């Protein structure tokens, strides 16, 4: 008997303790003040128009999100918004977290859902319609996920194989050009890719093979496997450990990376690597207003900010992607060493959404068993 009473007491104390703890822990988060309260006209209007959100904006991004601090500071002071950034993981983790929290949205605006997960985001209705004004219609149409204007393209890039040019020169072999070349005997044991189950570029490359081969993609991977393709856990292992053309000086001269990667390997005005433009998948990254956002207006402001000329010009150096606004001037090195593919392999977003999970499972049982 006494023990039971003691348990009840303990539970009661736990409840009291938890509330006390919670309130003192939560306090700092709720009492934070905006940088410059009402200093700018934009700030005042945002605050008066949307009293429910107290001038706060929560931006949910993938874990590669990055912009110059000055630009972010400018946005904060121009909008007068108290901005919080959260970056829960890669594009898949990000999208799935938003799906999981549909009933109580994680934030106001999302950036970083790519076209391999866009279909899922649209099907699940986690983003609300928003008509972006800062992006030229032609650029938006070229990269759109569907025709519902719920996802606004912010940047894009080509996921392509990269080759260590010096290796091919000294071994007297031609650099492969197409997906079909990769299964030829002279390229046996040369390629390392990352696992589509644990890496976004890996998933993009798997999608490229589906786009190129249709139903024949499983056969193609069987041939790749027979030709000694190596599967790394993620981009880091593939590129900086297994690849011979970068810092790791590994054993494999062909690696799955981005078309922009050679620009970052340039030494004395020459790039020791090059991308194989016939093997690419075009990855597009979108922003959207989260359905049920407390501050949809602030969310819209943030999307326009991402499309502003300053941010678009900042994207290549910060996120290693091409700006969606094509008129944006590119860094000099990119013009020389980071070409885009003329004909990347594509698969419509809704088809990816419907079949992605099945592809990964089939791929796993085919390639790694």
């Amino acid at each position, binding site marked *: 008997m006494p023990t039971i009473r003691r348990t009840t007491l303990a539970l009661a104390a736990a409840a009291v303790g938890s*509330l006390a703890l919670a309130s003192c822990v939560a306090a700092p988060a709720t009492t934070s003040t905006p940088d410059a309260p009402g200093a700018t006209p934009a700030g005042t209007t945002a605050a008066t128009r949307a009293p429910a959100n107290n001038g706060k904006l929560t931006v949910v991004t993938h874990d590669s999100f990055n912009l110059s*601090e000055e630009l972010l500071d400018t946005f904060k002071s121009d909008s007068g918004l108290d901005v919080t950034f959260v970056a829960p993981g*890669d594009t898949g983790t990000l999208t799935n977290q938003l799906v999981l*929290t549909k009933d109580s949205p994680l934030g106001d605006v999302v950036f970083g859902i790519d076209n391999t997960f866009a279909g899922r985001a649209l099907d699940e209705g986690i983003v609300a319609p928003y008509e972006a004004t800062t992006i030229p219609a032609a650029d938006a149409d070229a990269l759109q996920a569907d025709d519902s204007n719920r996802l606004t393209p912010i940047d894009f890039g080509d996921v392509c194989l990269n080759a260590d040019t010096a290796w091919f020169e000294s071994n007297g072999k031609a650099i492969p050009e197409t997906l079909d070349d990769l299964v030829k005997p002279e390229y046996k044991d040369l390629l390392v890719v990352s696992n589509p189950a644990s890496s976004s570029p890996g998933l993009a490359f798997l999608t490229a093979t589906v786009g190129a081969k249709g139903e024949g993609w499983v056969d193609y991977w069987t041939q790749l496997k027979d030709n000694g393709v190596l599967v790394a856990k993620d981009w*880091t292992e593939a590129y900086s*450990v297994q690849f011979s053309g*970068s810092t790791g000086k590994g054993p494999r001269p062909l690696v799955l990376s981005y078309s922009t990667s050679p620009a970052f390997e340039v030494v004395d005005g020459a790039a020791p690597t090059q991308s194989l433009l016939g093997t690419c998948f075009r990855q597009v990254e979108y922003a959207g207003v989260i359905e049920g956002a407390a501050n949809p207006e602030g969310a819209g402001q943030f999307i326009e900010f991402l499309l502003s000329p300053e941010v678009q010009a900042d994207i290549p150096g910060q996120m290693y992607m091409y700006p969606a606004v094509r008129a944006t001037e590119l860094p000099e090195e990119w013009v020389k060493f980071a070409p885009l593919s003329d004909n990347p392999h594509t698969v419509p977003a809704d088809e990816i959404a419907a079949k992605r999970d099945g592809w*990964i499972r089939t791929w796993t049982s085919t390639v790694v068993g």
Partner: protein
Amino acid sequence: MTRRVGWTLAGALPLAFLGIFFTWPVATLVARGFFPDGVFTLAGFQQVFSEDRTWRVIGTTLAQAAAGTVVAVLLGVPGAWVLHRTRFPGRWLVRAVVTIPFVLPSVVVGVAFKSLVISTGPLGHLGLDRSFAIIVASLVFFNYALVVRTVGALWASLDPRTEQAASVLGASPTRVFLTVTLRALFPAIASAAALVFLFCASAYGVVMVLGGAGYGTIETEIWFLTTQLLDLTGAAALSIVQLVVVGASLIVANRLQATQARAQRMRTDSSNESPWRFRRDIGPTLLTAAVVLGLLLFPMSTLVIRSLTTASGLGLDHYSNLATTGGGTLSVPVWEAVGNSLRTATVATVLALVLGLLVSLVVSRNPRNELGRRGLGLLDAAFMLPLGVSAVTVGFGFLITLNRPPLDLRSSMVLVPIAQAIVALPLVVRVLLPVLRAIDPRLREAAAVLGASPGKVLRDVDLAFLTRGLGLATGFAFATSLGEFGATSFLARPDEPTLPVVVFRLIGRPGLENQGMGMAAAVLLAVGCALVMALAERMRPEEATTW
């Protein structure tokens, strides 16, 4: 009566913390898996357990954790002797070095180990790539210090007179070790082994890199099902398996401890350390040197080399870049991330220490009835659970529980130190508990009989013995939160990154500049950890020492 209320409160506060920030989120997420459309179903279970892969994954997890634990203990106990019972110059440095792996982000360790064993690496000819041996080696790399430190802390405070008596009575050194010393150390060994087992069972990044494609553990499957597929039914089934594994290992550890835990003669000074002696110490010393040099420093040296390699030979360029944003790859210079890390880790350490101290004091009580003892055993085990449960489950659980006022903390920075404190708390308890349990209850009784109030007994007996463990516990807690990445990565703030987040970001970018700077940041983290551990070691209040 007031005492009882006091102890109940002391236990209730940490329990409430655990309940809100661990049990509730995990239970809610797992429950979603069983009620996918609001209706209870075991379909996920059937689906998951009908796949061969699931059983293989469970087998791999157990094999990996068991092998990692056994090897870490076998190597760690001699290490504890050398580093905690013998005196030699530079000992503080070696002690600090063995703790470094504890804070290294797994992505960096993955690169370090993998670079050694691939065909072009220095160990390429040994054919270790994708071998079980290299996976176990990496697990021991991470967990060696846990055994050395936990066992060493108790060993250093054991009264050597019991051993001396046995040897005077004619027992051989081996017999003394096996019958006296090992038995006295048993609680600490079991305690450390339980921790190591949980860490090994839930290891994620490194084992996936070293094991190669197809290598899967329960942890990697839960990560995939949850983050990539949002298949909560499948993930819930695996989470239950994970809980069963964790629960079973905790029961075993608890039983082992219960059979052996008894009061030891302890002392609070370090007079039982003796100078290094060739005949007695050469064996364990050689073994420990081999582990420290071959298993710890060798892989770490590849990181140092990478951090020093520039386009024009060796240089410190990457280190001077740490003052910058790395040409824009980071949103803040690395030193600002260091500031974030230190701030977060300080808060996490204070939280973990306060709560861990309360838990240890409560659990070390000796209730008169069986039920009370059982209850304390359960309490003890409850705080170990977070080590064995997937960070993904906790992270996704946060999203659907801590989402309403007054607990809408999902985008709040306070969750970061809280998540780290939950991981550090069991370490604090594991360090403090063996010390507290080994206090002869007669000491407390004697103090009470002589008229000391309960508060005074607590201060003058329990806390006096705890001081040594407290320094170590602080060091471990701080190091854990400095290096914690699993839970932190779900809560990361791009504009306020911690040091491991910065390393992860840099190493995920092409180009020598980024890679080299990432490695330099990792080396900075390692040196910082070594400093913290060396300082924590010196945190011993005057009155607890005799000289």
